[in-house]
């Protein structure tokens, strides 16, 4: 990155003072960010995350037989098509 000259001392002081004044301006207190609510909401989300992690292998396992059946059916169809073609060539 190109090395640029730093702002002058006056500028630095002016910006620094302005930023401090700006930061000191009050903002409306947050009503929604109650720490206790946040903590328990996070605990609940953590529990859901853990449940989702725990049940994921079961969900995957449930899909395996269906996928295996599909693959077997496709293989059988392929084999039958090939076999039928070979038999008809001999006739």
């Amino acid at each position: 990155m190109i090395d640029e000259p730093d702002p002058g001392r006056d500028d630095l002081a002016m910006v620094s003072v302005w930023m401090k004044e700006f930061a000191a301006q009050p903002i409306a207190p947050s009503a929604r960010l109650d720490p206790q609510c946040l903590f328990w909401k996070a605990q609940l989300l953590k529990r859901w995350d853990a449940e989702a992690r725990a049940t994921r292998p079961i969900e995957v396992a449930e899909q395996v037989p269906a996928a295996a059946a599909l693959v077997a059916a496709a293989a059988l169809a392929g084999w039958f098509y090939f076999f039928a073609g070979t038999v008809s060539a001999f006739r």
Partner: protein
Amino acid sequence: MDERAFQTLYNETAAPLQRYAARVLGDAARAEDIVQEAWLRLLRQPPALVAPGAERAYLFRVVSNLMIDHWRRHRREVTTATVPERAAASRDGALRLDMGNLFLKLTPRERQLLWLADVEESTHREIATALGLGEGSIRVLLSRARRKLAGLLRAGGHGEETR
């Protein structure tokens, strides 16, 4: 993290985090959502992923990233064109009232940099970590942002007041 430790961390960090998000975003409601999401991410993290004592840095990093995500999703940023030019009208009260609008004239990245450097007084390394930038580029980006803000302040007559 147990509830007590969280309460202590919350008491130390909530206000600066909320101010950072609200001032840099210029939208207090959106800032609340972002800060809440950052807290939830911290609490949902396995403890081993956030080193003890690094929670504050983690929270500032998550809030910074969430703000960037927000800006990417909503490109319709409050730009200089939409910011009312009330600051120039009267020097005393209006300039104070329009501090937020003046700050929004900077780019989101400049606002993050200036806030972290001048308000949070973070080191260049901390800023680089929070913003996902190279440590070496912080000095240049920061001085550019300061020059730009100084220019805006001078244009609003601020520099003449302080001299």
